[in-house]
Protein backbone atom coordinates (compact mmCIF):
# COMPACT_ATOMS: atom_id res chain seq x y z
CA UNK A 1 0.00 0.00 0.00
CA UNK A 2 2.76 2.29 0.91
CA UNK A 3 4.42 1.46 -2.46
CA UNK A 4 1.32 2.45 -4.37
CA UNK A 5 1.10 5.67 -2.57
CA UNK A 6 4.76 6.31 -3.26
CA UNK A 7 4.93 5.29 -6.99
CA UNK A 8 1.25 5.60 -8.01
CA UNK A 9 0.02 3.29 -10.89
CA UNK A 10 3.29 3.27 -12.89
CA UNK A 11 3.75 -0.48 -12.35
CA UNK A 12 0.38 -1.32 -13.98
CA UNK A 13 1.10 0.94 -16.94
CA UNK A 14 4.56 -0.53 -17.33
CA UNK A 15 3.14 -4.08 -17.28
CA UNK A 16 0.40 -3.07 -19.73
CA UNK A 17 3.00 -1.48 -22.02
CA UNK A 18 5.11 -4.63 -22.05
CA UNK A 19 2.07 -6.85 -22.59
CA UNK A 20 0.97 -4.79 -25.61
CA UNK A 21 4.54 -4.84 -26.96
CA UNK A 22 4.77 -8.59 -26.53
CA UNK A 23 1.38 -9.06 -28.14
CA UNK A 24 2.60 -7.10 -31.19
CA UNK A 25 5.85 -9.11 -31.29
CA UNK A 26 3.96 -12.41 -31.13
CA UNK A 27 1.53 -11.28 -33.86
CA UNK A 28 4.45 -10.29 -36.13
CA UNK A 29 6.26 -13.56 -35.48
CA UNK A 30 3.18 -15.69 -36.06
CA UNK A 31 2.43 -13.90 -39.34
CA UNK A 32 6.01 -14.47 -40.47
CA UNK A 33 5.80 -18.16 -39.59
CA UNK A 34 2.55 -18.53 -41.47
CA UNK A 35 3.99 -16.91 -44.58
CA UNK A 36 7.20 -18.96 -44.43
CA UNK A 37 5.25 -22.18 -43.87
CA UNK A 38 3.01 -21.42 -46.82
CA UNK A 39 5.97 -20.75 -49.14
CA UNK A 40 7.57 -23.98 -47.92
CA UNK A 41 4.40 -25.94 -48.66
CA UNK A 42 4.43 -24.44 -52.18
CA UNK A 43 7.98 -25.78 -52.74
CA UNK A 44 7.00 -29.25 -51.53
CA UNK A 45 3.90 -29.36 -53.68
CA UNK A 46 5.90 -28.12 -56.69
CA UNK A 47 8.43 -30.91 -56.10
CA UNK A 48 5.57 -33.38 -55.94
CA UNK A 49 4.15 -32.09 -59.22
CA UNK A 50 7.58 -32.30 -60.86
CA UNK A 51 7.85 -35.93 -59.72
CA UNK A 52 4.37 -36.78 -61.01
CA UNK A 53 5.21 -35.17 -64.36
CA UNK A 54 8.56 -36.97 -64.59
CA UNK A 55 7.01 -40.35 -63.81
CA UNK A 56 4.20 -39.71 -66.28
CA UNK A 57 6.42 -38.71 -69.20
CA UNK A 58 9.03 -41.39 -68.43
CA UNK A 59 6.28 -43.99 -68.64
CA UNK A 60 4.98 -42.50 -71.92
CA UNK A 61 8.47 -42.32 -73.44
CA UNK A 62 9.51 -45.86 -72.50
CA UNK A 63 6.23 -47.26 -73.85
CA UNK A 64 6.61 -45.34 -77.13
CA UNK A 65 3.52 -43.20 -76.49
CA UNK A 66 5.30 -40.00 -77.52
CA UNK A 67 6.54 -41.40 -80.83
CA UNK A 68 3.54 -40.21 -82.84
CA UNK A 69 4.48 -36.54 -82.13
CA UNK A 70 0.74 -35.88 -82.43
CA UNK A 71 -0.53 -33.61 -79.64
CA UNK A 72 -4.05 -35.08 -79.59
CA UNK A 73 -2.77 -38.67 -79.37
CA UNK A 74 -0.22 -37.77 -76.72
CA UNK A 75 -2.85 -35.77 -74.80
CA UNK A 76 -5.17 -38.77 -74.84
CA UNK A 77 -2.35 -41.02 -73.58
CA UNK A 78 -1.63 -38.54 -70.77
CA UNK A 79 -5.28 -38.40 -69.72
CA UNK A 80 -5.33 -42.21 -69.54
CA UNK A 81 -2.69 -42.06 -66.81
CA UNK A 82 -2.90 -38.69 -65.06
CA UNK A 83 -5.44 -38.46 -62.19
CA UNK A 84 -8.43 -36.33 -63.20
CA UNK A 85 -7.80 -33.70 -60.50
CA UNK A 86 -4.65 -32.54 -62.29
CA UNK A 87 -4.22 -30.15 -65.18
CA UNK A 88 -1.34 -30.48 -67.60
CA UNK A 89 0.25 -28.87 -70.57
CA UNK A 90 3.24 -29.87 -72.67
CA UNK A 91 5.38 -28.67 -75.51
CA UNK A 92 7.23 -31.14 -77.71
CA UNK A 93 10.06 -29.49 -79.63
CA UNK A 94 11.67 -31.62 -82.31
CA UNK A 95 14.22 -30.63 -84.94
CA UNK A 96 11.53 -30.07 -87.57
CA UNK A 97 8.29 -29.90 -85.63
CA UNK A 98 6.78 -28.31 -82.53
CA UNK A 99 3.61 -29.66 -80.87
CA UNK A 100 1.98 -27.86 -78.00
CA UNK A 101 -1.11 -28.73 -75.99
CA UNK A 102 -2.68 -26.21 -73.61
CA UNK A 103 -1.22 -22.93 -72.45
CA UNK A 104 1.61 -22.62 -70.01
CA UNK A 105 0.95 -21.16 -66.57
CA UNK A 106 1.88 -17.46 -66.78
CA UNK A 107 5.17 -16.58 -65.16
CA UNK A 108 5.78 -20.09 -63.89
CA UNK A 109 9.11 -21.81 -64.16
CA UNK A 110 9.38 -24.90 -66.32
CA UNK A 111 7.82 -27.91 -64.61
CA UNK A 112 10.32 -30.33 -66.03
CA UNK A 113 11.70 -31.63 -69.31
CA UNK A 114 13.17 -34.74 -70.88
CA UNK A 115 14.86 -35.81 -74.08
CA UNK A 116 12.88 -38.05 -76.40
CA UNK A 117 14.10 -40.24 -79.26
CA UNK A 118 11.22 -41.57 -81.33
CA UNK A 119 11.17 -44.86 -83.21
CA UNK A 120 11.73 -42.81 -86.40
CA UNK A 121 14.85 -41.38 -84.77
CA UNK A 122 13.47 -37.85 -84.35
CA UNK A 123 15.27 -36.06 -81.55
CA UNK A 124 12.96 -33.96 -79.36
CA UNK A 125 12.67 -32.21 -76.03
CA UNK A 126 9.36 -32.39 -74.20
CA UNK A 127 8.66 -29.70 -71.58
CA UNK A 128 5.69 -30.19 -69.28
CA UNK A 129 3.75 -28.70 -66.41
CA UNK A 130 1.42 -30.51 -64.01
CA UNK A 131 -0.71 -28.71 -61.44
CA UNK A 132 -3.85 -29.44 -59.43
CA UNK A 133 -7.20 -28.23 -60.78
Amino acid at each position, binding site marked *: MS*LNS*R*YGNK*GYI*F*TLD*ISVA*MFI*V*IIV*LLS*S*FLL*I*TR*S*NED*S*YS*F*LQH*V*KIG*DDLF*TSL*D*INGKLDSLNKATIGSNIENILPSNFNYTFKLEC*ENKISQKGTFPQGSIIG*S*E*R*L*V*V*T*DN*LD*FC*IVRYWIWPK
Partner: protein
Amino acid sequence: MAKVKAVFFSLGFFILVLIFFSFAVLISDTFKLSRDRTSELIALEKFHTLDESTQQGFRDIFNITSGIKISKTNTITFTEELPNSNETNFKNNLTNFSNFINLNYPIKLSDDIINNELALWIRPHNIKYYHESFGDDIIKVQHESYNFNKYIVNIITTRTLDSTSCSATGNSNGKLDVSATGASSTSCSSNSPQHVDLFDDSDVLIATVDLTSNILTIDSESSITVTTSINSLDDLNKAVDIYTEEGTLFMNFSDFNFIKNTSIRVV
Protein backbone atom coordinates in the same frame (compact mmCIF):
# COMPACT_ATOMS: atom_id res chain seq x y z
CA MET B 1 13.31 -2.52 -2.95
CA ALA B 2 10.64 -1.51 -5.46
CA LYS B 3 13.31 -0.26 -7.87
CA VAL B 4 15.07 -3.62 -7.63
CA LYS B 5 11.76 -5.44 -8.31
CA ALA B 6 11.12 -3.19 -11.34
CA VAL B 7 14.61 -3.94 -12.71
CA PHE B 8 14.00 -7.71 -12.30
CA PHE B 9 10.55 -7.29 -13.86
CA SER B 10 12.03 -5.52 -16.92
CA LEU B 11 14.91 -7.98 -17.11
CA GLY B 12 12.45 -10.89 -16.92
CA PHE B 13 10.42 -9.57 -19.85
CA PHE B 14 13.59 -8.75 -21.76
CA ILE B 15 14.79 -12.35 -21.39
CA LEU B 16 11.34 -13.62 -22.37
CA VAL B 17 11.40 -11.55 -25.56
CA LEU B 18 14.96 -12.73 -26.26
CA ILE B 19 13.79 -16.33 -25.94
CA PHE B 20 10.94 -15.58 -28.36
CA PHE B 21 13.35 -14.07 -30.85
CA SER B 22 15.77 -16.97 -30.46
CA PHE B 23 12.99 -19.41 -31.29
CA ALA B 24 11.95 -17.19 -34.18
CA VAL B 25 15.48 -17.15 -35.60
CA LEU B 26 15.84 -20.90 -35.07
CA ILE B 27 12.56 -21.70 -36.80
CA SER B 28 13.26 -19.22 -39.58
CA ASP B 29 16.67 -20.84 -40.21
CA THR B 30 15.12 -24.29 -40.21
CA PHE B 31 12.51 -23.20 -42.74
CA LYS B 32 15.17 -21.55 -44.91
CA LEU B 33 17.28 -24.71 -44.79
CA SER B 34 14.25 -26.82 -45.60
CA ARG B 35 13.38 -24.56 -48.56
CA ASP B 36 16.96 -24.74 -49.85
CA ARG B 37 16.92 -28.54 -49.60
CA THR B 38 13.59 -28.65 -51.46
CA SER B 39 15.01 -26.44 -54.22
CA GLU B 40 18.02 -28.74 -54.45
CA LEU B 41 15.71 -31.77 -54.62
CA ILE B 42 13.78 -30.13 -57.47
CA ALA B 43 17.04 -29.39 -59.33
CA LEU B 44 18.29 -32.96 -58.71
CA GLU B 45 14.99 -34.37 -59.93
CA LYS B 46 15.41 -32.40 -63.16
CA PHE B 47 19.04 -33.55 -63.62
CA HIS B 48 17.97 -37.12 -62.91
CA THR B 49 15.26 -36.89 -65.58
CA LEU B 50 17.71 -35.47 -68.12
CA ASP B 51 20.28 -38.16 -67.25
CA GLU B 52 17.73 -40.95 -67.44
CA SER B 53 16.18 -39.64 -70.68
CA THR B 54 19.59 -39.22 -72.32
CA GLN B 55 20.37 -42.85 -71.44
CA GLN B 56 16.95 -43.91 -72.73
CA GLY B 57 17.66 -42.01 -75.96
CA PHE B 58 20.98 -43.82 -76.34
CA ARG B 59 19.23 -47.16 -75.74
CA ASP B 60 16.62 -46.33 -78.39
CA ILE B 61 19.32 -45.49 -80.93
CA PHE B 62 21.33 -48.57 -79.94
CA ASN B 63 18.34 -50.90 -80.25
CA ILE B 64 17.14 -49.45 -83.55
CA THR B 65 20.42 -48.95 -85.40
CA SER B 66 23.36 -50.88 -83.90
CA GLY B 67 22.41 -54.29 -85.27
CA ILE B 68 23.34 -55.86 -81.92
CA LYS B 69 20.57 -57.81 -80.19
CA ILE B 70 21.04 -58.53 -76.50
CA SER B 71 19.02 -60.85 -74.33
CA LYS B 72 19.48 -61.00 -70.58
CA THR B 73 18.55 -63.73 -68.16
CA ASN B 74 21.21 -65.45 -66.11
CA THR B 75 22.75 -66.05 -69.52
CA ILE B 76 23.69 -63.02 -71.60
CA THR B 77 23.42 -63.42 -75.35
CA PHE B 78 24.75 -61.03 -77.99
CA THR B 79 23.69 -61.53 -81.60
CA GLU B 80 25.44 -59.56 -84.31
CA GLU B 81 26.37 -59.71 -87.98
CA LEU B 82 30.05 -59.74 -88.83
CA PRO B 83 31.11 -57.47 -90.36
CA ASN B 84 28.43 -55.21 -88.86
CA SER B 85 26.84 -53.33 -91.77
CA ASN B 86 24.99 -50.95 -89.39
CA GLU B 87 28.15 -49.13 -88.37
CA THR B 88 27.70 -45.95 -90.45
CA ASN B 89 24.01 -45.55 -89.63
CA PHE B 90 24.62 -46.11 -85.92
CA LYS B 91 27.55 -43.70 -85.73
CA ASN B 92 25.71 -41.00 -87.72
CA ASN B 93 22.64 -41.20 -85.49
CA LEU B 94 24.74 -41.18 -82.34
CA THR B 95 26.70 -38.17 -83.57
CA ASN B 96 23.47 -36.31 -84.38
CA PHE B 97 22.03 -37.20 -80.97
CA SER B 98 25.20 -36.06 -79.23
CA ASN B 99 25.13 -32.74 -81.12
CA PHE B 100 21.42 -32.29 -80.34
CA ILE B 101 21.77 -32.74 -76.58
CA ASN B 102 24.98 -30.72 -76.48
CA LEU B 103 23.17 -27.86 -78.23
CA ASN B 104 20.44 -27.78 -75.58
CA TYR B 105 22.14 -28.89 -72.36
CA PRO B 106 25.63 -29.12 -70.87
CA ILE B 107 25.54 -32.87 -71.57
CA LYS B 108 27.95 -34.66 -73.84
CA LEU B 109 28.40 -38.19 -75.16
CA SER B 110 32.02 -39.31 -75.30
CA ASP B 111 33.55 -39.48 -78.79
CA ASP B 112 34.99 -42.88 -77.80
CA ILE B 113 31.55 -44.51 -77.71
CA ILE B 114 30.86 -43.13 -81.17
CA ASN B 115 34.16 -43.90 -82.83
CA ASN B 116 35.86 -46.86 -81.25
CA GLU B 117 35.29 -50.38 -80.09
CA LEU B 118 31.72 -50.00 -78.70
CA ALA B 119 32.59 -51.92 -75.56
CA LEU B 120 29.70 -53.33 -73.56
CA TRP B 121 30.39 -54.31 -69.95
CA ILE B 122 28.41 -56.97 -68.11
CA ARG B 123 28.28 -55.76 -64.49
CA PRO B 124 28.96 -56.79 -61.78
CA HIS B 125 30.79 -59.69 -63.50
CA ASN B 126 33.15 -57.32 -65.33
CA ILE B 127 32.96 -59.14 -68.65
CA LYS B 128 33.72 -56.94 -71.63
CA TYR B 129 32.14 -57.58 -75.05
CA TYR B 130 33.81 -55.41 -77.65
CA HIS B 131 34.99 -54.96 -81.20
CA GLU B 132 38.50 -54.21 -82.42
CA SER B 133 36.81 -51.39 -84.27
CA PHE B 134 33.02 -51.36 -84.45
CA GLY B 135 31.94 -52.34 -87.97
CA ASP B 136 34.91 -54.61 -88.64
CA ASP B 137 34.86 -58.41 -88.62
CA ILE B 138 36.26 -59.16 -85.15
CA ILE B 139 34.37 -59.53 -81.85
CA LYS B 140 36.17 -60.12 -78.57
CA VAL B 141 34.94 -61.03 -75.11
CA GLN B 142 37.25 -60.54 -72.17
CA HIS B 143 36.61 -61.79 -68.64
CA GLU B 144 38.47 -61.18 -65.41
CA SER B 145 37.57 -64.57 -63.91
CA TYR B 146 35.31 -67.48 -64.72
CA ASN B 147 32.30 -66.13 -62.82
CA PHE B 148 30.10 -67.91 -65.39
CA ASN B 149 29.82 -71.46 -66.71
CA LYS B 150 31.14 -71.20 -70.27
CA TYR B 151 31.00 -69.44 -73.64
CA ILE B 152 28.66 -70.81 -76.26
CA VAL B 153 29.22 -69.51 -79.78
CA ASN B 154 26.78 -70.18 -82.59
CA ILE B 155 27.56 -69.09 -86.13
CA ILE B 156 25.01 -68.85 -88.92
CA THR B 157 26.31 -68.77 -92.47
CA THR B 158 24.74 -69.00 -95.90
CA ARG B 159 27.46 -71.41 -97.01
CA THR B 160 26.98 -75.16 -96.98
CA LEU B 161 28.71 -77.04 -94.18
CA ASP B 162 29.62 -80.67 -93.73
CA SER B 163 30.58 -82.90 -90.81
CA THR B 164 34.23 -81.75 -90.92
CA SER B 165 33.48 -78.01 -91.11
CA CYS B 166 34.20 -77.37 -87.42
CA SER B 167 37.94 -78.06 -87.28
CA ALA B 168 38.84 -77.99 -83.59
CA THR B 169 42.19 -77.93 -81.81
CA GLY B 170 43.19 -77.67 -78.13
CA ASN B 171 41.05 -78.07 -75.05
CA SER B 172 39.28 -75.30 -73.17
CA ASN B 173 38.32 -77.57 -70.24
CA GLY B 174 34.63 -77.15 -70.90
CA LYS B 175 34.75 -73.35 -71.19
CA LEU B 176 33.79 -73.10 -74.87
CA ASP B 177 31.24 -74.76 -77.12
CA VAL B 178 31.03 -73.86 -80.81
CA SER B 179 28.31 -74.74 -83.28
CA ALA B 180 27.53 -73.58 -86.79
CA THR B 181 24.48 -73.76 -89.03
CA GLY B 182 24.74 -73.41 -92.80
CA ALA B 183 22.59 -73.61 -95.91
CA SER B 184 20.01 -76.38 -96.18
CA SER B 185 20.20 -77.00 -92.41
CA THR B 186 23.76 -78.29 -92.66
CA SER B 187 25.66 -77.94 -89.40
CA CYS B 188 28.64 -78.84 -87.31
CA SER B 189 29.67 -78.44 -83.69
CA SER B 190 32.56 -78.85 -81.30
CA ASN B 191 32.48 -79.16 -77.51
CA SER B 192 35.31 -77.78 -75.34
CA PRO B 193 37.79 -76.78 -78.05
CA GLN B 194 40.33 -74.00 -77.55
CA HIS B 195 40.33 -73.05 -81.21
CA VAL B 196 37.91 -73.76 -84.06
CA ASP B 197 38.34 -72.99 -87.75
CA LEU B 198 35.01 -73.06 -89.56
CA PHE B 199 35.21 -74.15 -93.20
CA ASP B 200 32.50 -74.60 -95.80
CA ASP B 201 32.11 -77.84 -97.73
CA SER B 202 34.71 -76.60 -100.23
CA ASP B 203 37.22 -76.02 -97.40
CA VAL B 204 37.05 -72.24 -97.68
CA LEU B 205 37.60 -70.59 -94.29
CA ILE B 206 34.47 -68.83 -93.01
CA ALA B 207 35.48 -67.87 -89.46
CA THR B 208 37.71 -68.68 -86.53
CA VAL B 209 36.79 -68.89 -82.86
CA ASP B 210 39.58 -68.86 -80.31
CA LEU B 211 39.72 -68.87 -76.52
CA THR B 212 43.20 -67.99 -75.32
CA SER B 213 43.92 -66.88 -71.79
CA ASN B 214 40.95 -64.70 -70.81
CA ILE B 215 39.95 -63.51 -74.29
CA LEU B 216 37.44 -65.09 -76.64
CA THR B 217 37.97 -63.95 -80.23
CA ILE B 218 35.58 -64.46 -83.14
CA ASP B 219 37.04 -63.46 -86.49
CA SER B 220 34.95 -63.76 -89.66
CA GLU B 221 36.31 -64.12 -93.17
CA SER B 222 32.91 -63.72 -94.77
CA SER B 223 29.49 -62.46 -93.76
CA ILE B 224 28.12 -64.41 -90.79
CA THR B 225 25.71 -63.94 -87.90
CA VAL B 226 27.28 -64.70 -84.55
CA THR B 227 25.42 -65.45 -81.34
CA THR B 228 27.75 -65.27 -78.37
CA SER B 229 26.37 -66.53 -75.08
CA ILE B 230 27.99 -66.06 -71.72
CA ASN B 231 26.29 -68.97 -70.07
CA SER B 232 24.97 -69.24 -66.49
CA LEU B 233 26.44 -66.21 -64.79
CA ASP B 234 27.25 -66.71 -61.12
CA ASP B 235 24.86 -65.06 -58.70
CA LEU B 236 26.83 -62.15 -57.22
CA ASN B 237 23.84 -60.83 -55.25
CA LYS B 238 23.50 -57.83 -57.53
CA ALA B 239 21.31 -57.16 -60.55
CA VAL B 240 23.08 -57.96 -63.80
CA ASP B 241 23.14 -55.02 -66.21
CA ILE B 242 25.04 -54.13 -69.36
CA TYR B 243 26.78 -50.78 -69.54
CA THR B 244 28.95 -48.85 -71.92
CA GLU B 245 32.50 -47.90 -71.00
CA GLU B 246 32.96 -45.61 -67.96
CA GLY B 247 32.90 -41.91 -68.77
CA THR B 248 30.60 -42.23 -71.77
CA LEU B 249 28.10 -39.64 -70.54
CA PHE B 250 29.29 -36.32 -69.13
CA MET B 251 26.91 -33.85 -67.43
CA ASN B 252 28.19 -30.51 -66.24
CA PHE B 253 25.63 -28.28 -64.51
CA SER B 254 28.35 -26.30 -62.79
CA ASP B 255 25.93 -23.51 -61.74
CA PHE B 256 24.33 -26.05 -59.43
CA ASN B 257 27.64 -27.74 -58.61
CA PHE B 258 26.34 -30.90 -60.29
CA ILE B 259 28.89 -32.78 -62.39
CA LYS B 260 28.49 -36.41 -63.41
CA ASN B 261 30.72 -38.61 -65.53
CA THR B 262 29.19 -42.02 -65.99
CA SER B 263 28.52 -45.04 -68.15
CA ILE B 264 25.21 -45.66 -69.90
CA ARG B 265 23.05 -48.66 -69.07
CA VAL B 266 22.30 -50.41 -72.35
CA VAL B 267 20.19 -53.28 -70.99
